[in-house]
């Protein structure tokens, strides 16, 4: 959370995450190399090249799967907490692959290796001899921008919205890398197994995103008892849910047409409504819980007070709040967001409803 610029705040979780990550990458590269030496007769350089390339590609698949997996099952949330570290590792392994390939295939002539890489093969009209390196370079440049801006410092300076938009470029990067592999390694090896593995990866990544989209769509569909509106105004109370629908210290997320999702929290006999979107990385606040009086985002633990949407001191983040009331055991809100940080008196649950 922001007060001023500071370096990465290392904690035990981050250290364990990075140690496990570095060990996994080292183990993968070692195993790939060892098995490759036994099963393949090519040079060590090409073997290492392929070990790095497949490792980076596998890491990117994992990065892409963590988001939807965390949306489908909260048990994957710990992986999301330090996903950026995984992304930076993906870039570094990919960079090592690119540097080794450039040096090995273009570093022994009189021409600058980078110029040789970009200018030697210009058969863009051919499928079998397509300069697949171009797709790899584009993907690596995208991953570089993402890795370079992965610190919270950049997120605060660019604004969360711009930062998120930049990091959505991971999807085009994935597309370029699929084509890089399809037109490069697959043509070199000619085995249908590699094509099958590539398609399997695409199906897994695409399928998880599709499943998540389907789940989110269901969550956004108002229940029959909920009033659907098209043009919310600042004076109209809209029925959102029953008080009993909300577990203590948790929230119910409602989507009243025409506005963002709203998270309605119940705590200590009171009800407050805030936007479901965290100011940090747009995490789903309504899937978090109230810890020590603060709504805690399930993604990275950012905190907000439920009645005013403000982070506790010394932090300054603010989120939008909504006017809320309880009528006859039902929660009603005015689905027009108030300016971030606006104090809204919580709705009090009547005693008999609270006990029930």
């Amino acid at each position, binding site marked *: 959370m922001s007060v001023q610029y500071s370096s990465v705040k290392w904690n035990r979780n981050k250290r364990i995450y990075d140690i496990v990550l570095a060990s996994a990458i080292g183990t993968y590269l070692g195993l790939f190399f060892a098995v490759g030496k036994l099963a393949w007769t090519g040079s060590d350089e090409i073997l290492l090249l392929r070990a790095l390339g497949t490792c980076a590609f596998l890491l990117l698949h994992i990065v892409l799967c963590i988001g939807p997996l965390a949306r489908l099952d909260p048990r994957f949330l710990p992986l999301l907490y330090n996903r950026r570290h995984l992304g930076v590792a993906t870039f570094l392994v990919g960079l090592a692959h690119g540097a080794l390939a450039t040096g090995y295939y273009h570093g022994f002539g009189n021409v600058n290796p980078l110029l040789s890489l970009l200018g030697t093969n210009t058969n863009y009209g*051919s*499928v*079998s001899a397509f300069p697949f390196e171009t797709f790899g370079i584009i993907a690596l440049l995208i991953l570089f921008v993402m890795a370079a801006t992965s610190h919270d410092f950049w997120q605060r300076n660019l604004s969360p*919205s711009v930062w*998120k*938009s930049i990091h*959505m470029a991971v*999807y*085009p990067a*994935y*597309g370029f890398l*699929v*084509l890089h592999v*399809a*037109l490069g390694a*697959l*043509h070199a090896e*000619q085995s249908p197994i590699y*094509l099958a593995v*590539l*398609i399997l990866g*695409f199906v897994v990544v*695409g399928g998880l*995103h*599709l499943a998540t*989209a389907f789940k*989110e769509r269901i969550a956004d569909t108002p229940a029959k008892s909920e009033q659907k509106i098209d043009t919310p105004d600042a004076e109209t109370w809209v029925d959102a849910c029953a008080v009993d629908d909300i577990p203590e210290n948790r929230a119910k997320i409602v989507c009243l047409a025409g506005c*963002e999702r709203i998270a309605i929290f119940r705590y200590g006999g009171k009800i407050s409504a805030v936007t479901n*979107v965290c100011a940090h990385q*747009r995490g*789903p606040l309504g899937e978090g819980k109230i810890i020590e009086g603060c709504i805690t985002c399930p993604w990275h633990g950012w905190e907000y007070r439920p009645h005013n949407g403000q982070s506790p001191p010394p932090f300054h983040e603010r989120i939008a709040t909504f006017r809320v009331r309880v009528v006859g055991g039902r929660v009603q809100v005015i689905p027009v967001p108030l300016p971030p940080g606006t104090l809204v008196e919580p709705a009090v649950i009547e005693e008999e409803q609270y006990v029930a």
Partner: protein
Amino acid sequence: MTVRHRRWHLWIWLALGPAIAIGLFISWKGMAP
């Protein structure tokens, strides 16, 4: 995620999915025998 970013996801996948599928198909068809 905001509504805007959910829409971005949708449009990106609507473009990316067919593009990758077509790319894989062209690559497979273009493989030397």
